[in-house]
């Protein structure tokens, strides 16, 4: 930035900060750590390319997510963000299991409230069992997203 102090990226890279510096709006000079961490993980040229490929109104969000990922990878050099994702996926699975159990309990309670078996034809009970998978599907309302994530994990 001519006439003004260089942005954090140009200061770290020891170059002249021009007025159209792509990093300047997102890496102010008062927060050098932010660019340092992103540069360490992704590299300045890669970040520059990524930002150039995005419309201007999305660049701030992209920088925030890059900083988040770089910070996660600095704290956990092996798993980075993927560690947090695995943890959250486990939580989702556990909640879905608990939901399935609770819905089964409702079914049992409903069956307890129904009239005794002798008063109902046997065929009705056989049909009742086919209703169970639908409830299981409701328990996992996000099955589609979970399957997508599983396929992506297999890509590695």
């Amino acid at each position, binding site marked *: 930035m001519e006439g003004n102090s260089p942005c954090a990226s140009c200061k770290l890279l020891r170059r002249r900060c021009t007025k159209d510096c792509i990093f300047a709006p997102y890496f102010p000079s008062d927060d050098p750590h932010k660019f340092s961490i992103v540069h360490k993980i992704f590299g300045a040229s890669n970040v520059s390319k990524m930002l150039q490929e995005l419309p201007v109104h999305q660049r701030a969000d*992209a920088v925030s997510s890059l900083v988040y990922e770089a910070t996660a990878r600095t704290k956990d050099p092996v798993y980075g963000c993927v560690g947090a994702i695995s943890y959250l996926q486990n939580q989702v699975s556990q909640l879905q299991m608990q939901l399935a159990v609770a819905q089964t309990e409702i079914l049992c309670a409903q069956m307890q409230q129904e009239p005794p078996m002798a008063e109902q034809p046997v065929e009705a009970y056989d049909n009742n069992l086919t209703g169970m998978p639908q409830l299981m599907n409701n328990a996992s309302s996000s099955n589609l997203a979970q399957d997508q994530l599983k396929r992506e994990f297999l890509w*590695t």
Partner: protein
Amino acid sequence: MSNSTRCAACRYLRRRCCDDCVLAPYFPSANPERFACVHRIFGASNVARMLQQIPVEQRRQAADAIALEAYWRVQDPVYGSVGVISMLQREISVAQRELAETQAQVSIYTAQVQSQSNQITQVQYLVDNAHLIPNQPPIPGLCQPPDIP
């Protein structure tokens, strides 16, 4: 490693793949897209440096995690793996809400069943012990059974 058996990284970078290539075990030539993705987001030298700083026994997991993050960033250039985290957090909120509602329904059903069970028990008790209740004066308006001779 000869040119014919170069790893995906060295093939992409058009260089000789030496025996101690740090990237070779994790970027086999059979999957060139994986390295292309990683190189596009992180850069080969950054990835090599990151892997070198990790103990050997953990490098495979690290390479897989880096490949996944690169893949998600290519799929979503704005949010990358942070978008995946946001999606999972939303799913957790929805699942927690569904679970709370379902457990509330379970409590209601359980209370209903218990209440019905208690009523049946009370009625059965009265029926079983009706003979213990002494003769009461006739209740006006109520039809009385005939006297036993």
